[in-house]
């Protein structure tokens, strides 16, 4: 890839542990924003960003609507809203129907990010028990972006990355310990 402009990470059951292991090893000067979309229960809003920000020197924040994406910042999708990326590289939120029984749906963020960043996007799908994110990864691939999954053998719940491997041309299946070095390499 020429130059990565954004990384989106999607996950469900079993993905939090992975994030907690990956974040401490990320470079402190990533040249792109990282957007995290994980399924979680509505109501426990500020807990996840707080939990994650304890693990990295990068700024971690829950997305505010219409906020511009800034390099070196880790954005967490708010619970109970879909998270979309606009052409002008700002976020918007959407309270429409659930997709794959999920809101936020990983598919929605992957797809809108692909339309904005095209071949300068990397998307990583982690552990989880449903197939949310699989269609999104397909779109990412169609636009020439990098498709990444957690190696299903290392996932607490292999179904989600395994479904992606089954239906999408995946560029790399990463072990947990290889994720941070890989992401740092994407950074210039």
């Amino acid at each position, binding site marked *: 890839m020429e130059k990565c402009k954004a990384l989106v990470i999607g996950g469900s059951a079993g993905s939090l542990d992975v994030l907690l292991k990956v974040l401490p090893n990320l470079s402190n000067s990533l040249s792109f924003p990282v957007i995290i979309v994980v399924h979680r229960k509505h109501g426990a809003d500020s807990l996840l960003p707080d939990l994650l920000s304890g693990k990295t020197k990068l700024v971690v924040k829950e997305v505010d609507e219409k906020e511009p994406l800034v390099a070196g910042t880790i954005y967490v999708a*708010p619970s109970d809203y879909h998270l979309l990326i606009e052409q002008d590289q700002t976020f918007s*939120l*959407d*309270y*429409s*129907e659930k997709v794959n029984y999920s809101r936020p749906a990983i598919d929605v963020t992957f797809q809108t990010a692909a339309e904005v960043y095209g071949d300068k996007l990397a998307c990583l799908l982690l552990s989880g028990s449903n197939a949310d994110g699989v269609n999104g990864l*397909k779109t990412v691939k169609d636009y020439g972006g990098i498709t990444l999954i957690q190696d299903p053998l290392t996932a607490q719940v292999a179904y989600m990355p395994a479904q992606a491997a089954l239906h999408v041309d995946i560029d790399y299946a990463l072990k947990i310990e290889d994720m941070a070095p890989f992401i740092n390499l994407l950074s210039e």
Partner: protein
Amino acid sequence: MLLDLPVISEEQVEILLSDLLEHYGYDFTGYSKASIKRRVLRLYMLDKAVSFAEFRFKIINDQVYFKRFVEQITVNVTEMFRDPGFFKTLRNEVLPKLGTYPFIRIWLAGCSTGEEAFSMSIILKELNLLHKSLIYATDLNPTVLEKAAQGMFSLSQMKQYSENYILSGGTKDFSSYYTAKYSLAKFDEELKHKIIFSTHNLVSDHSFNEFQLILCRNVLIYFDRDLQQKVLNLFDESLEDLGYLALGTKETLDFTSVAKKYKRLPLEKIWRKVS
């Protein structure tokens, strides 16, 4: 080569939106682009449109389909007592203050299928304020208002709504407010006597009254910054001094030109007009 790419481009969405404005006077041009594109694409696929040209022709020339288009590209997902903490604050802090007024006028803007209007009615009734209240529930979409006016919601939702109701400080038996009818829960007629359902388009219509409480939750997220500002001005014009404005959990007055006139209540997205 790119087989699965979306069949409608940003430019085509723009074309449809200017058609709507030109032929029907509905202005969606200030809506957030990614969201509206997703809605348009969803409908395009749902209705198995043959081509963009045919899709466009049908929207312009077929009144019934135009209605469907507007209904489908706007988001009409809502629930009763959504965000129970918010309704608890209304019940315990906001409404008791407004209860000292001789008459309470409430505007629920973007009421969709009416779940929040009925939630509001229930709280007002329990606070013994319903008799002197009037809830103006408005939406741009006539079809959802017809549904709202029926006061019938899916019975399968009642377990969730009942939990929300209790978490919001309700102490009655929630099922005492409705009668089960097949797969529907029909809410008591009494609850809707004080609700006026009416069309109002936040983009193009003006202020139509003065209110002590305006609720508009999860509507502004679909608007771009300019339109948000315009609508907030409309609310400001329509709100009495010391009145309250309530927005969705991810929406804010911060950084807008009206912000300095308002003071936020702790924890919830409710602001009081203080000057």
